[in-house]
């Protein structure tokens, strides 16, 4: 029962993170469009927009921050994996539990301080300092949401690693990991 709850948690988190990450990627073409439109409007119509500058920066921030959790799920984040690659799977699990805990610590802090920023932005109606002056609060809300998602993903990995350490069995099928491990070993053989 408890184990299936854990499994349910892991699968749900994987799914939510994936959905959010995929949805975020739709912002990429929008960002490219906004920037090209500014160039077009400025050069060909001689009418620079007031909004493209801030809008493109917002999109940039949304893409970069929201994508963090999915990038982790896909093992995309950069690590210095020299020792990591040389140790056993068990040891890796221990390593991961330690380093993901540090990650959660940092992300919890981000959520905590950004919540202050969010409240402050609501209270004072904080805007960007540009001529267009869009409101800022949604950006902090997005950061809180992204980092919470990232925390859930890291917690999910800690749970599955701890489960493996205690029982010697995989909690959920770790497709991505298996692939990346075999690939890694092939490369080391070169």
């Amino acid at each position, binding site marked *: 029962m408890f184990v299936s709850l854990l499994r349910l948690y892991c699968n749900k988190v994987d799914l939510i993170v994936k959905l959010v990450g995929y949805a975020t990627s739709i912002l990429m073409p929008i960002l490219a469009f906004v920037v090209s439109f500014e160039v077009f409007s*400025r050069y060909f119509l*001689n*009418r*620079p927009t*007031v909004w*493209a*500058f*801030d809008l493109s920066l917002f999109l940039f921030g949304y893409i970069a921050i929201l994508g963090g959790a999915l990038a982790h799920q896909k093992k995309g984040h950069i690590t210095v994996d020299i020792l990591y690659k040389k140790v056993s799977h068990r040891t890796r699990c221990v390593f991961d539990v330690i380093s993901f805990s540090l990650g959660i610590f940092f992300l919890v802090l981000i959520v905590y301080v950004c919540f*202050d*920023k969010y409240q402050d932005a609501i209270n*004072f109606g*904080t*805007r*960007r*300092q*540009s*001529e267009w*002056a869009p409101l*800022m609060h949604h950006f902090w809300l997005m950061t809180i949401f992204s980092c919470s998602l990232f925390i859930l993903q890291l917690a999910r990995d800690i749970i599955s690693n701890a489960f493996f350490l205690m029982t010697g069995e995989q909690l959920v099928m770790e497709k991505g990991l298996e692939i990346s491990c075999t690939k890694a070993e092939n490369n080391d053989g070169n």
Partner: protein
Amino acid sequence: GIAANDASAAKYNWRFANLYGRGTAFGALYEQLGRDIERLSNGEIKVQVLYSGEGVGTSGLFGAVKSGLITMAASFQSMHAGEFPAGIVEIGLPGGTDDTDELYSLFHEKGWNPILQKAYGEHGLVPLEQYIQPPVYVLTKTPINSIEDFKGLKIRAPGAYGKFLRNLGASPVSLAWGEIYTSLATGVIDGAIGSNMIDHRDGNHVEVATYMYPLPLAGAQVLSMLVNQKAWNKLSDDLKTAVMEATVLHAKNQLEKSREWEAEAVAEMQEKGMKWSPEPSESDKLAWKKAGETLWDEYAAADKYSKQLIDILKKN
């Protein structure tokens, strides 16, 4: 010796951030202010001066003092227009005066200071003595023979300055500071404003754009010096007076030195080929002034403290 080692001697350790680079002439003025605070407080307040890029970004100063990350900041209000709109009025709306005595009386006698204290107070900030820096000028690639020539020009000008230039028929463009040079060189933009003449010089803009328009966008810039309220309230009255005294000294230094350095910067730029656009006609001067005045109402409508400040401005 660094701050943390000497900390035992001082009662208060302050981090004081400014917008200038380490080793620059303006940077030295803030360094001096830090030393004056230490001296006048008999060493009870120890000041660590932080320069541009040293821990807090230029647009983050306001938030950093507010949160207590740094204790004190010499900020640039335009950078914080979104957090503190009244700062735009404080620094000097386009079309404002350049008479330093008049500015002084505006703050100290005609009622600006109490309003600003209240406005900054809401953010947990205490404003110290303001200081005056030289005005904002616009540099263009082609000469401006009449004010009509601004029509259709793409000029890098943030916030209020952008609105002012739009009133003249120009198109304000938003760009990162680091891209101004290349953008002027290739013609992405036809001109740019700098936060003052020294900024134009440091940015090497005259290498790629020659003509400086003789009328400044705002007569003078009144910059604020902010302290975190919690840190301020910890000080005894004597120490508060000491810090105030140091900032009054600093304001005098700024006024003297910044004029001198502005003149130097202009001379250096002229040596490198900078030219003034022809002296504007009387009607151009009038149009210039008008372009600024319509902004007053716009800014007054946007924020209650801005309105109170502008009301006083209009009365005089």
